[in-house]
């Protein structure tokens, strides 16, 4: 049994190509059933997201399947010219399994470690299950990929670090304050950026929001949306002592918040820490504020540095994730190998047992004078003969399964003993 994947992603193809071959939600079922019309394709799965379009299939035929998949791709989307090779990747067996595991663990994503892809893969699998296009192999493979993704996430912490400016701000705030519950946020400037950051902060169930903006109207509107309170722009220094987190994003040309003001605010707060986030360019807060005890100031570049550090951590985690994937590939391929081996051995044993039973019955019928002891001896003798005859071939194919070189033998066994010929089986019985 072979596993194939053919597809393209954000690394191999630009969005103009990807959008042309994307499978819309309505046509996926149709695509899967048309895919399974091909005789050599036993199981199929379709993953189509904004960053990737992939077809997974499994088949006994190792030579013509990729060509078939590629043709399906082109025919289904009615492409006029064949897909250029540099856009499309074709992987099979171990490579295909590795690819799926990497996709599921978000190692192949545009944003390393982003969590959405696993959900998309689960949806794709559910859709394939609904139209019964997945059988034992792909089902097992997909379940395995989910558990690999889970293992990667819990053992490497790849998704623990955040990669957007506003998430980075939230993370830093949590490093300072622990829980953000009961912390108050002061927004100075009510632009789009501060709205986004405010939303992330308020997701952490902060206590209340104060908004100061040059045009009071906009401050009122933003405050109303988040259940906060607008304060007059010129009075914002008076509200500093109440604020744990201060976020500035005004278009002022000069600093609007100075060290002396922060020192005073911290004193009034009895040294309770304050976190200043300055996402304005040019900056709104005097950099010396960071030197005040218990005050922490991050400007937009500092936040970017945090994100870079997170990215480095993620890369390290990704290296560990590859090790995990290696282990899991081995364990899956072993299962796949056994899948072929086990039924062959079972069929062979059954076949020999049927012959033995038939011949014994004939003998016993012809020799009614045999006592029960002699019958038992004959039973044991024939059973041992079959065991001894089968011993060497079975040992050999079991040994060879690890490097995959047992396939010709499996094939030969099935042909020589006619294990796949149903009618003859009937003859025996």
């Amino acid at each position, binding site marked *: 049994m072979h596993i194939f994947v053919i597809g393209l992603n954000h690394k191999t193809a630009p969005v103009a190509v990807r959008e042309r071959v994307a499978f819309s939600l309505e046509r996926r079922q149709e695509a899967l059933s048309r895919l399974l019309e091909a005789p050599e394709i036993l199981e199929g799965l379709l993953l189509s997201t904004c960053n990737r379009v992939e077809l997974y299939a499994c088949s006994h035929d190792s030579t013509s399947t990729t060509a078939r998949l590629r043709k399906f791709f082109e025919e289904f989307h009615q492409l006029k010219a064949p897909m250029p090779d540099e856009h499309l990747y074709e992987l099979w067996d171990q490579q295909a399994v590795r690819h799926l595991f990497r996709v599921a663990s978000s190692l192949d994503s545009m944003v390393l470690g982003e969590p959405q892809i696993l959900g998309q893969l689960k949806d794709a699998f559910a859709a394939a299950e609904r139209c019964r296009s997945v059988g034992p192999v792909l089902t097992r493979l997909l379940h395995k990929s989910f558990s690999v993704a889970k293992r990667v996430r*819990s*053992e*490497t*912490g790849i998704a*623990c*670090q955040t990669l957007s400016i506003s998430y980075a701000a939230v993370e*830093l705030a*949590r*490093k*300072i*304050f*622990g829980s953000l519950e009961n912390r108050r946020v002061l927004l100075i400037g009510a632009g789009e950026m501060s709205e986004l950051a405010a939303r992330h902060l308020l997701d952490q169930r902060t206590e209340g929001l104060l908004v100061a903006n040059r045009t009071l109207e906009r401050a009122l509107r933003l405050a109303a949306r988040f259940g906060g309170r607008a304060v007059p722009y010129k009075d914002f220094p008076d509200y500093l002592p109440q604020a744990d987190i201060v976020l500035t994003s005004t278009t002022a040309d000069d600093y609007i918040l100075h060290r002396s003001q922060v020192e005073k605010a911290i004193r009034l707060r*009895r*040294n*309770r*820490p304050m976190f200043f986030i300055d996402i304005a360019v040019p900056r709104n807060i005097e950099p010396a504020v*960071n030197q005040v*005890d*218990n005050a*922490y100031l*991050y400007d937009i570049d*500092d936040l970017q*540095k*945090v994100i870079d*550090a997170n990215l480095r*951590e993620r890369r*390290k*985690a990704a290296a*560990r994730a590859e090790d995990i994937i290696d282990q899991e590939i081995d364990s899956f391929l072993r299962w796949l190998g056994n899948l072929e081996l086990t039924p062959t051995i079972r069929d062979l044993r059954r076949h020999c047992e049927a012959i033995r039973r038939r011949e014994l019955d004939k003998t016993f019928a012809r020799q009614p004078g045999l006592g029960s002891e002699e019958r038992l001896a004959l039973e044991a003798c024939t059973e041992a003969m079959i065991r001894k005859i089968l011993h060497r071939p079975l040992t050999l194919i079991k040994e060879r399964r690890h490097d995959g070189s047992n396939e010709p033998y499996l094939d030969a066994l099935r042909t020589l003993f006619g294990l796949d010929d149903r009618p003859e089986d009937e003859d025996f019985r």
Partner: protein
Amino acid sequence: MRELLFQITLLGYLAASCSYLMHIASGRNRPAQIGSRLLRGSFVLLSLALVASLLPMATTPASRPYLPLSFLAWSVTGIFLWFEGRHRLTVLGAFLAPLSLLLLVFSGALLRRGDGLQPLFESSWFPLHVGLVVLGYAFFALAFIAGVMYLLQERMLKNKHLSALFFRLPSLDSLDLVNHRCLAWGFPLMTLGIITGAAWTHAAWGRYWRWNPKETWALISWLVYAVLLHGRLAIGWRGRRAALLAILGFLCLILAVLGVNLLASELSDTALRAAVKR
């Protein structure tokens, strides 16, 4: 039997230390979970070992030289396990489990040296004094570790240099809370410990205070903690300053306990012998 129990406890602490260090090095959560479980198990074993070493003895427990150190390891672990769940302080274990292990190894070594009982220690003040002081030490040790971690993390936040360790440290707020809690528990314990110590000194030597280096250093660290407590409660000190004072106070304590105690007794011993020879 008691020996065996003690050895298994040591092994448990060793394993827990390794797990926690692996957590720090790799950033994986699983070793920390294992470490936490190992530490819990070792704590139970150590409790048993301590009870077992109390049972057959007719005399007071604290007069055995190795017991105070084991009791210190026990208290430190106990307080940590008590705090760990509340403040998500898992990483502290990486500092704390090795510290407890070290204390236990020390106490094991002292046990093997087999110091006998001295009549001096047979006052009933003595075990009370040792028990109170050791519990106080345990709180201060935890405040010390939390202080070091606070300074580390505060520096990283200020310099905007976030290393891998940064992501595993607890928040500044919870570290400061540990500082506060430990001070609130440790200071009264230490105060009572010093008072009972004075009472014991009076019973043994007829004087309440002898101004030996140990007592002096204990007094100095008590003063440091008094300043810190006053600063926290009255002036609103917190954060870096509180962490620094907790570290300073503990360094004074270490001088009072280890340095001065062992060194001075060795010194006076050899000096005495030299004088006798002459």
